[in-house]
């Protein structure tokens, strides 16, 4: 172990980057970047999406090679050629986009990155031990494709911790956690830091950085624009550093709910696979002109409910239970529901909301038919114009509508997908995790667009794990836990504590279900 060495050489930084520059074609992702991380320090890297945070972290992790610059590890110059070498040095990383094989179990996924001498059972035991040590709930025998985004992140964190790292890089780790789980993660991270492990914490959530981190490096457009102590900064001053301007304000009018638009009446759906969640007597109402939120830790039936609502899972049991403007739609496909005015933005952007290899313009055709002429002929000019209009209206940062969907950053693609559905003028819009991994500017924009849609009379249903978001934009709230849905409550009458409790399945006369999100 290196503790002794660390203790003796406090003046030597754990990691030091100097003059790091990285270009991708015409784009300069990192421009003469310097970064110093001390041992046992929790160091924030703050910046908007596309500011170059992820590229910088991939350089440290050896996944990307810089065009220029030097890296020192414990005072010695190194060139980190591969993630393998980075791990050998003691650098671990939890990516924002997970690298897990969907068909393998949790234990098998983690086993892949470990020594071949270990048996699967011993790896599973170590996972359980490590997860318990840090209060994370994880079943090593589950197959990854059955896990929610939040659960997959837990796998990645435990995988990183198993290597006993000296530097842990976390890329936007709290996006999908409950407030309680975020607090627990912070306890874990502080605990980890006291053992001498340095932590690089990438985020754009200013409150988190102020409460957790010791030092903060701010990136804007690939350049370092400031290094500060976040504990003495204000949220506003950090925000100004990050985006170079004051954060946009959300304008919110009083809701004027109209007719019942989307109704779910005692929907009960058995689970379709071993690790799925059965929906148990779910009832829900969304009126025109209101934003309704569903809170809850992912993996509690949200995926199943959304698939039933969108039409991706039209089962006979749902036939009478789902009504759109009074019409039973439970057996209709997604196309038929969309023609009736029900649009849906799924949680997964690449691969579900958009086809990675197709252009932005072509991706319009997944849900929009305006450019399709007789005999199925695609009016290319109309399609490009339509895509250009959405790119302009929703300020999507991209060279143009011919760019492949996979070339966009997560936040930009989300703006485009949300824009595609809002632009269709839906009667009912269902959005899953609208701002997951989206930067501050884009988040405010997406939220204000959703509110504008509500004010125009659309019924909006938002399924999110981000409680701040739900409190900011919804008029009424439900909570989902273990396949059941709580009664609705006006957001103005709800408190974070109450909703956090409900997330464990403990509402009013409701069942005393066991918590999944924040185990004791």
């Amino acid at each position, binding site marked *: 172990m290196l503790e002794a060495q660390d203790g003796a050489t406090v003046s030597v930084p754990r990691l030091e980057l100097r003059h790091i520059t990285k270009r991708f074609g015409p784009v300069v992702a990192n421009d003469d970047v310097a970064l110093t991380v001390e041992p046992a320090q929790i160091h924030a890297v703050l910046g908007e999406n596309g500011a170059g945070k992820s590229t910088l972290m991939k350089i440290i992790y050896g996944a990307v090679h810089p065009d220029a610059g030097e890296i020192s590890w414990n005072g010695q110059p*190194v060139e980190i050629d591969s993630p393998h070498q980075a791990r050998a*040095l003691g650098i671990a990383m939890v990516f924002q986009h997970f690298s897990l094989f969907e068909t393998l179990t949790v234990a098998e996924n983690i086993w892949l990155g470990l020594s071949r001498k270990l048996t699967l059972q011993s790896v599973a035991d170590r996972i359980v031990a490590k997860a318990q040590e840090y209060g994370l709930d994880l079943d090593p025998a589950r197959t990854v494709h059955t896990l929610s985004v939040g659960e997959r992140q837990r796998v990645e964190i435990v995988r990183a911790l198993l290597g006993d790292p000296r530097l842990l890089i976390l890329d936007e780790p709290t996006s999908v956690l409950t407030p309680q789980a975020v607090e627990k993660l912070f306890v874990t991270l502080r605990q980890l830091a006291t053992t001498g492990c340095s932590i690089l914490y990438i985020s754009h959530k200013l409150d988190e950085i102020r409460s957790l981190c010791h030092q903060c490096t701010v990136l804007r457009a690939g350049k370092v624009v400031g290094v500060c102590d976040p504990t003495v900064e204000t949220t506003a001053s950090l925000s100004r550093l990050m985006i170079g301007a004051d954060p946009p304000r959300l304008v919110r009018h009083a809701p004027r709910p109209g007719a019942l638009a989307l109704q779910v009446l005692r929907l009960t759906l058995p689970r379709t696979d071993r690790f799925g969640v059965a929906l148990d007597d779910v009832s829900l109402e969304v009126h025109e002109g209101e934003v309704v939120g569903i809170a809850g830790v992912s993996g509690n039936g949200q995926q199943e409910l959304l698939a039933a609502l969108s039409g991706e899972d039209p089962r006979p049991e749902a036939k009478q239970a789902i009504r759109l403007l009074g019409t039973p739609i439970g057996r209709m496909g997604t196309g038929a529901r969309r023609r009736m005015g029900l649009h849906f933005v799924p949680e997964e952007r690449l691969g579900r909301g958009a086809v990675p290899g197709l252009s932005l313009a072509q991706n319009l055709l997944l849900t929009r038919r305006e450019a399709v002429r007789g005999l199925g002929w695609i009016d290319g000019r109309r399609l490009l114009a339509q895509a250009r209009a959405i790119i302009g209206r929703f300020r999507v940062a991209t060279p143009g509508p011919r760019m492949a969907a996979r070339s966009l950053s997560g936040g930009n693609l989300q703006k485009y997908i949300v824009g595609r559905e809002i632009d269709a003028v839906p009667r009912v819009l269902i959005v899953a995790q609208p701002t997951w991994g989206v930067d501050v500017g884009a988040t405010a924009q997406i939220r204000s667009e959703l509110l504008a849609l509500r004010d125009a009379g659309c019924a909006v249903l938002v399924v999110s794990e981000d409680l701040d978001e739900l409190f900011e934009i919804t008029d009424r709230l439900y909570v989902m836990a273990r396949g059941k849905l709580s009664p609705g409550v006006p957001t103005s009458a709800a408190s974070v504590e109450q909703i956090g409790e409900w997330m464990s399945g403990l509402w009013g006369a409701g069942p005393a279900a066991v918590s999944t999100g924040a185990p004791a």
Partner: protein
Amino acid sequence: MIRLEARAAPSRLMILLSPLIALAVTVVVAAILFTALGKDPVRGLSVFLFEPFHGMRAVTELGLKATPLILCSLGLALCYRSNIWNIGAEGQFLMGAIGGGGLAMWVTMHGVVVSQWGFFPFVIVAGALTGAAWAAVVALLKDWAHANEILVSLMLVYVANLFLSWLMFGPWKDPKGWNFPQTVSFAPETTIPRLIPGMRLHWGFGVALLAAALMWIFLFRTFRGLQLQVGGPAPAAARYAGFSARGALWTTLLTSGGLAGVAGAFEAVGPMGQLTPHVSTGYGFTAIIVAFVGRLNPLGCVVASFLLSMFVIGGELAQSRVRMPAALTGVFQGVLLISMLAFDTFIQYRLRVGGGARAAQAAPGEPAA
């Protein structure tokens, strides 16, 4: 140290260059092979690279060989873009040959008088129907029983082959054919009209080019074509959009089976003028290589079909001119495909040289525990 580094965006240059580099590698391998076998490499290469283009007759023969390859590879490109792995175009080709050839035989034997142009559409329809029917078996088994289409389509090749042999040795054998396993020679009225007088190249070539143009339009200009191509790379997106996976399965298999069947019918009724057990020289399998060398693009398939027919004709010439074994064609086709797939790596990655050795020395910080 040499290493691969991911590119930020796929290289457009390499998409075009990769097949050309692969061709260059194949030529170099061919030259080495000729030299190793004690042949003059310049003479050997000229048989492959120049003689197939030397003179009108040679070029039209190239087109004749390319015709079935174009038709088969178009259907396969459609399948592969939709993530349907039909590798049984050979079987669908043979069934098409039985359909088209059987019709021509029936017309010949019953003395039904037809004109060449009047009969031509019937050849197309007969080939398309039998080929599509054969592919429908694959679609049906996949749809009903989730049977793997790769295995089923491949196995059906052998069934089709044996069925053809049974017909040739049994009920369809020419009674006056000295017991050879072949049908009667078809009446001249049933053969496909020639494209150029005096040459064997027929109007089937025109049909193949038309099919390529239509396939290009279908894939890249129509909504249905786009729908098919979503299900392959992004099945969740297809479900989200409401595009039918079953629809894609049936459309692609029936289309590719039909196209391979038309190719088979053309081969039987066109240059051969009778049906034999050897109606195909592996066109359906070669077409798989064609589809990939042509980048699953209909126009690319046309170019690749000519390239691969060059190897087929070159191989035949090499046997007679420089006494090389017939297996040479297969070797060159394989080298071409393997090297193209290898160089395709550089579409997504770039090669980086150096830097590794220094880093290895400067990385002593391996934790002891």
